[in-house]
Structures are given as structure tokens and as C-alpha cells.
């Protein structure tokens, strides 16, 4: 039985547009960057030390912007808090307020503790009284930096990292759940969705860190270490591998089960999503970085070429993740619930949820990151490793 093109009359509109593409992209970066820092803080991967604190700042900068795309999207942003006042526990979306605030607390605590020594030092040595009070307030009136305290802080950071990993996963994975749990939409409805989202989040987080690490360390803001880059690239490769397997399995199952869903999805893939999914996301976004990263596995990391390839691979991977968000969010709405009608989406420039807003919201985290790094240093505290300790002990801790 074949059908003529038919859309349900209410299905003429695309309700989830650029803002909903931007939102999971941002939460993905939050989760990914946090994972990268957890590799050091929790799993003790010493190679990643140069970016471990910076990654937390990246995570925070994006975290502070994560709600904005949602607010721009809502029909009634002024009622946004209803989601915590009268939450409906059967809705994945209702968890947002709670997961978000929980993770925000964990993240700020973790940053606060990893910068503890700086905070205490600033509280003592800042020039102006205002600044002193500010830093002392941040230190909550305490000012101990003895070895015991450092040890306790390290423990706390470790535990917070342990808590932070699942909550970062939840913060992002639940977005996957939001899409994956809708039986009305065959392109979304798959239990692999949270996993695909999570893996691509790690890809995007690592990719962003690679780009920023190369850029910032070449200007001397971060300590350059080829080991660090190599480790980041390896984990990016690993995440991409798992991501590709999940995404591939998803499509393969749709194809093999060949149910009603494949009827829609095959048409979608060969018409509306041919360019953006098959050619751009898979053809450029997956093949290019994965090939480069695979070659780089066998290369010496102290070559200029290695760094160049790393940047290219990371940039394309980042682009791939953005396209993946696009293809899932927009692609899932490009067919009608009748499953036999298709529609196009062309974003507006000046719309409330348009291209300019998207660009603004994508740049805002970088601005916030800049502000954050003006307050807190990007570099790792030098005294954290054993060998460097004697150099630092010139300033004796009080109390």
C-alpha cells in the first residue's frame, strides 16, 4: 500500500527549533567537559592535569547558560519555575530543575575546592579591602590550608567527582530520555537515545577542550603538554568509536526490523536528511575526525602535524555533534505524525528562536568563561604534585 503525501493539519509547524538544538549541545559540553576533568580528579589520569581545572570552568560557563535556550523557547518563560513548583514526576522534563540545581551545587563545590588554596591566598594578599572581603566571603570565613585540610579537600573533590559523574550524565542523558521515550515519534523512540546523546556529549566536551587547549596553551595561558593532548585525543577516539557503534546499531535495527518506523525513517534519510545527516553528519562529521584520530593513534605526538590534525579532528567532531543535535531535533519533526507527510524547516534570522539568538547564546558561554578566568586562574596549582612541593613552601601556611 502506498500513500500520497499527507500531513496532519496541526503538523504544519516545527515547534522545537534552533533553541532545542542548542540546548542539548550546551548540556553535552557541560557533561563532556566535566568527564574530562573527572578523568583526572577521580580516575587519577595525571596526563590531564593541565586542563583538569580549566575543564571545570568550561563546564560552569556553559552550565550558567544552559537554561537560556529553554527560556527563549518556552511560550511562557515567566512560568518556568512551575516546573519545580508543581512537577509532574512522570515527565522526564520535570526533573530538569532538580537535576540542574543539584549538578550546579556539585560543580560549584568542586570548583570551589579545587581553587581553595588560591581563594585563601587572595583573601590574605589582595590589595584592596573590597577584594579581601570578597575572597574571605568566598572562603566562608575559613582560611586553613594545612596539609590536613588539603588532604580533606582532595577527598572531597574526589567524592564530588564521583557524585558529579552520574549527575552530569543524568543532566545530559535525560535529554536523550526526553526524545527516546516518545512512542509517537519513530525517529526518536529508541532506548539507545540517551546513550547516543551521552557518548556524543563526551565527544563534544573532549573536542572543545582539545581546540581550546591547543589555542590557549599556544598563547601560554595553559601549561602545554603533548601527553595531555595525546590523552585527550585517545579518549575522543574512544568516545567516537562507541558513539558510532550506538548510532550505527540504531539505524541498523530500524532497517532490519523494518517496521512502520523504517517506512518513515528511510524516506527521511533519503530525502529531508540526505544532506544534513548522511552527507554532512556522517560523511564529514564522523568519517573525517575518526579517520584522523585513528591515524593519530600511530603517530608521535610531538609533531606539529599531530597538533594540526588534532585541531581539525576536534573541530569536525564538534561540528558533527552539533549536526547530530540538529538531525535528531529537527529531523524528528520533519515528518508528520501521519508518517506519510514531510515538511521543511528554514530557520529565521531575527526570530525569537532564530539564528541570531542561537549565535548569541553560543558565544555567551565563552564570554562567561573569559570573566571566570579573570577571577580564577586557568593554570593548575603548581604545588599539587609531589616533586614541585619544595618550591612552593616558601609561603608558610598560617594557623
Amino acid at each position, binding site marked *: 500500500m502506498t500513500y500520497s503525501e499527507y500531513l496532519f493539519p496541526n503538523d504544519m509547524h516545527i515547534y522545537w527549533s534552533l533553541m532545542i538544538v542548542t540546548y542539548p549541545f550546551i548540556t553535552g559540553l557541560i557533561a563532556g567537559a566535566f568527564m574530562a576533568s573527572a578523568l583526572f580528579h577521580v580516575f587519577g589520569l595525571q596526563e590531564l592535569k593541565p586542563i583538569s581545572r580549566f575543564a571545570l570552568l568550561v563546564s560552569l560557563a556553559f552550565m550558567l547558560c544552559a537554561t537560556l535556550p529553554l527560556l527563549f523557547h518556552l511560550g*511562557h518563560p515567566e512560568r518556568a519555575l512551575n516546573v519545580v513548583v508543581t512537577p509532574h514526576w512522570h515527565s522526564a522534563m520535570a526533573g530538569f530543575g532538580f537535576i540542574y540545581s543539584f549538578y550546579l551545587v556539585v560543580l560549584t563545590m568542586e570548583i570551589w575546592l579545587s581553587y581553595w588554596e588560591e581563594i585563601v591566598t587572595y583573601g590574605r594578599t589582595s590589595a584592596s579591602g573590597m577584594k579581601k572581603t570578597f575572597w574571605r566571603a568566598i572562603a566562608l570565613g575559613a582560611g586553613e590550608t594545612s596539609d590536613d585540610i588539603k588532604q580533606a579537600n582532595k577527598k572531597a573533590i574526589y567524592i564530588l567527582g564521583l557524585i558529579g559523574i552520574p549527575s552530569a550524565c543524568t543532566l545530559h542523558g535525560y535529554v536523550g530520555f526526553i526524545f527516546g521515550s516518545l512512542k*509517537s515519534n519513530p525517529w526518536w523512540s529508541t532506548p539507545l537515545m540517551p546513550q547516543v546523546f551521552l557518548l556524543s556529549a563526551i565527544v563534544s566536551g573532549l573536542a572543545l577542550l582539545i581546540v581550546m587547549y591547543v589555542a590557549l596553551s599556544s598563547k601560554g595561558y595553559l601549561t602545554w603538554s603533548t601527553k595531555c593532548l595525546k590523552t585527550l585525543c585517545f579518549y575522543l577516539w574512544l568516545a567516537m568509536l562507541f558513539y558510532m557503534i550506538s548510532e550505527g546499531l540504531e539505524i541498523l535495527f530500524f532497517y532490519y526490523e523494518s517496521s512502520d518506523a523504517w517506512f518513515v525513517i528511510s524516506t527521511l534519510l533519503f530525502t529531508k536528511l540526505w544532506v544534513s545527516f548522511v552527507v554532512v553528519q556522517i560523511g564529514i562529521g564522523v568519517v573525517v575526525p575518526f579517520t584522523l584520530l585513528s591515524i593519530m593513534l600511530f603517530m608521535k605526538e610531538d609533531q606539529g602535524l599531530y597538533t594540526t590534525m588534532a585541531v581539525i579532528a576536534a573541530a569536525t567532531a564538534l561540528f558533527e555533534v552539533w549536526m547530530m543535535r540538529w538531525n535528531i531535533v529537527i529531523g524528528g519533526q520533519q515528518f508528520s505524525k501521519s508518517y506519510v507527510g514531510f515538511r521543511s524547516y528554514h530557520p529565521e534570522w531575527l526570530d525569537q528562536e532564530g539564528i541570531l539568538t542561537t549565535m548569541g547564546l553560543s558565544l555567551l558561554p565563552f564570554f562567561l568563561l573569559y570573566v571566570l578566568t579573570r577571577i580564577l586562574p586557568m593554570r593548575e596549582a603548581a604545588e599539587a604534585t609531589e616533586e614541585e612541593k619544595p618550591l612552593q613552601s616558601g609561603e608558610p601556611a598560617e594557623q
Partner: protein
Amino acid sequence: MDKKKKNRRAFIKSAGHALAGLLMVVAIPKPGWAQRIHDIEVGEEIPDWLDHYWVYLIDTTKCIGCGACVRADKRENGVPPMFFRTWVERYQITEDNHVHVDSPDGGYGGFLPEDLAQLLTSAEKDPAGPGRGGGKGKNKVTKGFFVPKMCNHCRNTPCTQVCPVNASYQSPDGVVLVDKTRCIGCSYCVQACPYGSRYIHPEKHTADKCTWCYHRITKGLMPACVTVCPTGARKFGDLKDESSEIKKLLATQRLNVLKPELNTEPFCFYIGLDQSVR
């Protein structure tokens, strides 16, 4: 070593306390939530809602596709242009087993062509294919019917399930409603509805949908679309009313629902629904 252990224990303890606190607040019953429907005393304040359980029945074999229901619905509920709480689809299956589906403007003006002149002057039936004529050859329409559609007021509701703020809910008498003063306009419910029955109101920016004319049925009237239906294709009634016509029909007719495979348990039943209906 001892110190370390103690330290860890202290942390685990405080973390445990925090977690317990979180769980407690999550579990604290919200004001009145514990009260269930049957616990409520039916007083003056609470009218006869609980004495009803509404159900809708559509007989596709009777529908003539005049669109009176769509027009009445728009007037009754002020539905904005290009959005529909109810609409009518026309299915035409041709000799080559091709299904033509259309619903021009949701069936608002019926299915007549824009320009009537040809119809009124020419004696020839439309030869080009399915449409008002009947087609020729492999385009000949072998089977055709109209299918009115609307919110199915499902029991296993995919749309209220995903409403994050409890703005959309199922009323005690079985009607799925949207509280427009609580709705945040996230359009998750629009995505979750497999039938395309919901939309975001372009001016109010909240979710909007068929209410089975809740303001009419609670006053003893039929929904507007049922009132105006000239052939009785649309039927509505109360399951708790033992003598109602709809109870008899539901008990005796062969029924189907839309997209039964999704297990949404629609409470809008169809008589004579073809398998080609989407």
C-alpha cells in the same frame, strides 16, 4: 590511616544526610495530593462531575465530509485559523492500491474545489484522478471514506504523561484538559501526541486541544461537533448512564481505535475504520 578513614566516614555521612534530605522532600506529599478522587465528598462545590464518564464514538460509514463539525468547533472554541481541534480527512484508495489522503484546511470548507464553475457547468466528471469525479483506469477510486479526527482522550495518555508542570491532566470524568494558566508552552505534549491533536495556540502560547467542549457537556449539552453533525456520524455520551444510546452502540458494534499498536487506549472509538487510516 585512621585519620583518613574517619575523614571519609564523615564525608559519607554528610553526603548520606544530604541524599536522605533530598529524597524526603521529593516524597513529601504535596498539599492535598494524598486525597484521591473517591475520598472527596460531593458537595455543592463539586457538581455532578463524578457521576459521568464520557466517551466518544465516530461512525466513519456515515460521515459525508461536510466539515460542519470543523466550522462549529472553530466558532465554539475560537480555534485560530490553520489550527484544528477537530478535522476531517478524506481517504481514497485507487485501483492500484494507492492511498490518497487529503484534508484541505482541515476540512473547514468541506471538500469542494476552490472554483465551483467547472463543477456547475461541465457535465464531465473529473477525469484526472481521485477527487470529486472518480478517476479512470488505475486511478479509479475503488474505496473511499471520510475520517473525522480529534483528540482521542486516551486513558494511557502519552501527552499528560510528559507534561512537566501538571498543566495537562485527565479530569475525573475522563476528559484530557489543559490548564492555560499553568502551561509553560514547552510543546512537549505536542510532540508526544501520536495523533497530531495538539497545537500551541499562536496568541496564547500555551498548548491547546479538544476539550470535548467541557463547558457544554457539563451543562447537559453535546459537544458542538456532535450537535451540528447532519448524519449522526459523531456520537457522544456517558458511560455511567445506563440507558444511553452510546452504551448500546459500544456494546454491539465492531469498534476500532486509531494507532492501537501504541497502546494509548483511546476513548474515542471508531466504527468502520479502514486499516489504511493513519
